């Protein structure tokens, strides 16, 4: 299958290894990966701020970039949900509504694509260690992807997956929310980190690098660093720790 990869802007800038790992996994499974280089941002920041006109400008451009894609794989549950769930509402009544619906139907979050489109549950990865999985809220509640990442992780050799009490509780990132209400966002992040710590896991895995940015940021600032990894990095692993 010809796969067009959507690499969210902050993954491109801060976590390129996540996208490289995703490319590796998809290619290993025998698929052709394309990266439309004109892509920038999906438009979620202004959308969540309520500035839908501004969001439409950037989202429209983003849709054009992916117009000819056969399948779009988003490396973030949050940005994926923007395209899959919110584009149709953002362009409701707009001339581009049909395009928004088409893009929506072609877009899948990474774990969703592997498990539900490619029907792959074991990618042949091996990763030694004890890890806990954090559900990004957009993956969990907009895309309803509770199972797929866990199915994939359960088949990773050497990986021990432990659930935390607050697995489904928001990490507090929330985009602009994290800087508009830093005190609430940080308190939520602390609750999350305490729950992660209580599992004794060395690694935190998620399908959303934005959540991991929040979780890792709090762990590092409070002097108890913990390795945070995107699901793709674990699935690309062949026994040794990435990066």
């Amino acid at each position, binding site marked *: 299958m010809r796969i067009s990869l959507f*690499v969210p*802007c902050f*993954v491109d*800038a*801060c*976590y*390129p*290894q996540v*996208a*490289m790992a995703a490319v590796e996994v998809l290619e290993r499974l025998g698929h052709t990966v394309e*990266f439309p*280089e*004109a*892509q*920038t*941002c999906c438009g979620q*920041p*202004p*959308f*969540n*701020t*309520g*500035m*839908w006109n*501004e969001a439409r*400008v*950037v989202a429209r*451009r983003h849709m054009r970039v992916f117009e000819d894609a056969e399948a779009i794989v988003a490396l973030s549950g949050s940005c994926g949900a923007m395209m899959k769930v919110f584009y149709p509402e953002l362009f409701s009544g707009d001339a581009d509504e049909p395009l928004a619906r088409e893009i929506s139907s072609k877009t899948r979050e990474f774990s969703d694509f592997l498990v539900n489109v490619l029907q792959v549950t074991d990618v042949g990865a091996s990763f030694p260690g004890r890890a806990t999985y954090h559900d990004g*809220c957009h993956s*969990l*509640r*907009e895309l309803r992807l509770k199972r797929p990442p866990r199915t994939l992780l359960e088949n990773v050799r050497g990986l021990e997956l432990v659930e935390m009490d607050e697995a*489904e*509780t*928001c990490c*507090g*990132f*929330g985009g*602009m*929310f*994290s*800087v*508009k*209400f*830093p*005190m*609430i*966002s*940080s*308190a*939520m*992040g602390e*609750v999350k980190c305490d729950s992660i710590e209580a599992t004794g896991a060395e690694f935190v895995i998620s399908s959303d690098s934005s959540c991991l*940015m*929040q979780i*890792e*940021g*709090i762990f*590092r*600032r409070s002097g108890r660093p913990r390795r945070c990894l995107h699901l793709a990095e674990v699935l690309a692993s062949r026994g040794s720790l990435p990066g």
Partner: protein
Amino acid sequence: MSAPSREFHRQARQVTRDLNHRSFVQKALDGYYRKRDEYSARFRSWQGARDLAFEIKFDAINHLDHHLEEFARKAEARGTRVHWCPDGGAATQTILEIARQNNVRSIIKSKSMTTEEIHLNDALEARGFGVFESDLGEYIVQLRHEPPYHIVFPAMHLTRGQISDLFQSELGSAPTNDPEELTMIARRVMRKKFCEADMGISGANFAVSETGMISITENEGNARLTTSLPRIHVAVLGIEKVLPRMEDLALFLPMLATSGAGQALTGYNTLIGGPRQSDEADGPGQFHIVLLDNRRTVILADPEQRDALHCIRCGACLNVCPVFKNVGGHTYGTTYPGPIGSVITPHLRGLQSWKHLSAASSLCGACTDACPVKIDIHHHLLRNRRNAARKKPVWWERILFAGYIVLMRSPRLYRLGLRLGRIGQKFHPLVEGTRLDPLRAWTATRALPPLAKTSFREQWKARRR
């Protein structure tokens, strides 16, 4: 920034720092989660029940005119007086008038968020009436002169010790840590108030239009006394409380109990169909129903958010909300705190003054999943943000996103921005976390992820070659 917004920020800063509050609220809710899950699992299908509840409420709200008129007609047929009140002022005037005409002196109340909404107690007390809350939690916060912390558990923020201290100073009771003893102290005071009261004021959980009855659900039995002992009973309810049929209660009563308190069914469920009839021996001689609009019709007129009127005030969305749990109920400064409050308060009290509540959310959606009547809560927060920005965009957000558009429209400028960012990053440690740090909102509590030496798109290009 509006005054309510400033106050929200101030209190949020304070409460989120309070680790005792954080662990106390978490502990208070742990038992609720267990029980809620246990009892919702007893439904043949909890999701099916939610779907059905949504449909019933959808019909009730979308044909509100019809159902309300039927409700009033049926109620009046059994001697109930129905008062249609457009706002809080009209409702308060109506109740004051009833009290004056009947030489009322002492008023007993059972739990009603609708009367909180219109600040009825203040109005009655200002006119010289004695007003006593008979719900234990409400009584406690009344003694403390503060609003309820939570719409179902008004005093959940207080420890037994704090309640004992309060009773000691206000009622002169002996200190105790025993919840039963604390309840008995309040009960001894309350029993006297019940006997003295000329008027009982209650809320209602549901109004059944088919029979013209109101349904009240409670755990302490105080609402039964409030509505049956005094010679006059006044029930205050929002117009959204309507359910079309009696049989709808078979779904809504257990659902409210499960979502609201983690119970199979609440301790006392009462249906009231009118004042004392000629062939009846007891009960109030007068029964008044005050139907309150108070801008609910503003929500009704908005087809996008009309489902916010489905709300049965169970508080389930508050209990699962990480924002509520971290800032606490009083920080909101609203009658209805938590997610549903953040949705409806901008409609009820003004969008521009209360839009900060819709922004103060990570949009995690836990509320929407918890809502028994399937209100699209977290998406409505997003719609409130859109409506607020459309009418009056924030100046700095306008500049920010104008710049963002320029950057995101041109991959060249985007790449240039990344390069400049990497240069800026070298100097950032000099100011990181200090007052001079432009990223302080993030870095005060969190480490910043470094920009990678080479972005993915650069690595991708190199790989192609």
